[in-house]
Structure formats: C-alpha cells, structure tokens
C-alpha cells in the first residue's frame, strides 16, 4: 500500500492488482479497504504506479443493495463504459485508462468490476475469460471447461502435486503473437487468476502456453473423445464470460473463440472422480 495526499489535504491510499499481466490501480481514502484488497488478492498485488488501468473507489455506507441483480454493461457515446449491479456503479474510460467505482467496503463488488474490465480489455486483444479450471503441467497449460456442476472443482481438487493450479473457476486466456525473437508460433497463454469457485483457493500467479482445452463431463470411466470444430466453438462460446451488450465487442469475442478452436486442440474429457484422470492430462 502506498499513500499520497490530494490538494484538498485528503490522504489517498492505493494498491495494484495485476492479473493476466494487466495491472489495475485501486485508489481510495480508506486504508482498511486497501488492506482488505491486499489480503483478498494476495499473490496478485503489484506496483500501482505501473498499472495500465486506474479506478478511484468511492466507498459508501451500506444500503439495501442487491448483489444478485443482473449486471449491466453498456458503452456510451465517447467510448465510456458504464458498469452497474445492485451493489456497485462504475464508469471506465478505456482511452484514458481511468474510472470510478461507487460501492460499499466489500471485496465482492470490486471483484465483479475487475472481471468485467478484464473481459472488455481481452475482447479487443483476441483473448477472453472463460468458465474453466486450468492448471500447468510439464510447462503447458490445460483448460477444463464446463458450466456449474461439470466437474471444474472436482478435477482441480484431484490435481497431482506436480500440477500448478491456475484457477478452479475462471481461466484467463490471452492471445500470444508470433515471437520475432524466438520464432515461436502464435498461440494462447493461460494465466493464473484470483477468481475462485467452490475450492475458494486462489490460483498461482504464473502463466504457460495452452496445450489443450477439455470440455468436461463426468462418467463411469476416463476417456477423451474428439469433438468437431463446430461443437467446440459452440461449447467455448457458451462458457466465455462476456457481460457487454455490444455488437462490436460481441463479434470480436465470437471470432476469438473460433480462432482459438482452430489453433488449440479441443476434446471432450469424460472422467470418474478420482486422481486417475490426471494420467490422461500431460
């Protein structure tokens, strides 16, 4: 945490939260809220002054808010984004990289804002957030995608000691350009995230090139079956987190999902709930 004083003499405290290589600086006048965020995002705290995105948080008194209300993400004229749910109201100007959040002092509202903002940033870069557990094994990342109940938490819990868990709930996928330095082909990289599911365990803040995407199903035996490109694309699109009712960005996400499927092997992984499934994931 660092502190600065404004011209009006109010102290400002900030914390940098770096996820997927993208830093977000959060500023507030409440040092206890910064401490709360430092604990919540332990392992993902970075240097605030290096962040590409900055949010000033206006903490309000608790009211009769409804965090279950549907989130609304809309782009206004000038490119300013408006993000709203029962428990927060935020604005973000992507051109300036700055925004504001109005919420109570809780970690859940800002967590939702971070997910939305990352999904918007990634959409323009060919990446996405997707409902999927992910882990690194032998230097390669494997994604396990599926809706609630498909087995993301189960397969995460069964991961062997040599697998590094990136997340049990929301995977962070960035497109990797062809490296002129190494000659490596374009591909995709998975990053660890602090976005947790039932396991309630933060992922490791590491990254690795994605080797495969598995569509999860639970069954009496472990098996891997091929899926068509069409089926893979449909399944992936159904699991990508995207909140904005915005035709331009929706089209980008659609094309990104199709391109991902054309480059990364996708298959259906049916597994029984024991550690033997990991013998098939190497």
């Amino acid at each position, binding site marked *: 945490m660092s502190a600065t004083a404004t011209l009006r003499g109010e102290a400002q405290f900030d914390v940098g939260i770096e996820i997927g290589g993208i830093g977000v600086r959060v500023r507030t006048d409440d040092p206890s809220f910064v401490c709360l965020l430092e604990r919540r995002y332990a392992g993902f705290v970075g240097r605030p002054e290096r962040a590409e995105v900055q949010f000033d948080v206006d903490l309000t008194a608790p009211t009769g808010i409804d965090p279950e209300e549907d989130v609304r993400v809309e782009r206004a004229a000038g490119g300013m984004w408006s993000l709203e749910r029962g428990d927060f109201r935020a604005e973000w100007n992507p051109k300036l990289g700055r925004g504001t959040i109005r919420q109570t002092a809780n970690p859940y509202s800002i967590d939702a804002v971070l997910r939305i903002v990352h999904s918007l940033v990634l959409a323009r870069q060919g990446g996405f957030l997707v409902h999927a557990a992910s882990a690194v094994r032998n230097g390669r990342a494997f994604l396990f995608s599926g809706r609630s109940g498909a087995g993301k938490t189960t397969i995460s819990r069964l991961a062997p000691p040599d697998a590094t868990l990136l997340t049990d709930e929301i995977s962070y996928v960035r497109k990797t350009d062809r490296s002129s330095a190494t000659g490596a082909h374009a591909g995709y990289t998975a990053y660890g995230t602090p976005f947790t599911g039932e396991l309630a365990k933060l992922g490791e803040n590491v990254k690795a090139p994605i080797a495969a995407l598995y569509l999860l199903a639970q069954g009496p035996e472990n098996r891997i079956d091929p899926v068509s*490109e*069409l089926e893979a694309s*449909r399944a992936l699109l159904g699991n990508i987190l995207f909140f904005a*009712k*915005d035709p331009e960005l929706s089209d980008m996400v659609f094309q990104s999902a*199709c391109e991902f499927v*054309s480059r990364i092997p996708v298959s259906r992984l049916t597994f029984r709930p024991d550690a033997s499934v990991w013998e098939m994931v190497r």
Partner: protein
Amino acid sequence: MSAAAAPGKRYVARSKQMAARRLGDEVMIMAGSEATVYTLNDVAAAIWEEADGLTPLDEIVERRICRDFDVAPEAALQDALVLVEELAGHGVMEISDTPIAPRNYPAAPAEEPR
C-alpha cells in the same frame, strides 16, 4: 443503389449485427445483442451467404440450391421459404417483397484454415 421489385418475388438479407463463421459445410452465427448461437446446415448456409437483400430468393435457390443439391426448383423454393421465415423469426434474416437496401451487412463468412 436501389432496385425495382419484381412481382411475386421475395428478397432476403442477412440481419445486421450478426457474427458469422463458416466451419466446414456449416455456418455458425451469433446475434451480438443476445449472444445466442445458431448453426446453419449446408443448405441454410448457402442461402445465408447469398442473402444480399437484392437477389430474389428464387434466383438464390436456383443458382445455389438446385445446382449444388440436385433438387427441383419448386420444391426447393418452398423449403427455402419455410427456412428463411424461421430464420427471420429468430432475427437472423430479413424478408421483404421489395429489395432490401444495402447496409452494413456482415460479410459472408470465409472458412478458416485449420
């Protein structure tokens, strides 16, 4: 550009704000506003790709469906009408008795090499 309507003709156009991608023989499309994904089979995909708002449906059917799928024009046109009305019901296509003015239609999808 405007085109005169021919009596008894139906015109079809791809709806705006649809993302589309050809995957093999099929086309996957998604409505940007609702993130609903539709899959068009080879026949529907052929009509979708030709639906420029200016070409009458019977010409599309004759040129793409009868030629590629070896079916009689009358039967093919009846089936095509049912299909495009269903697609129009989902907001995927527009149908009109007059040519539909060109707008920013999504380009017909090109197949991506795997």
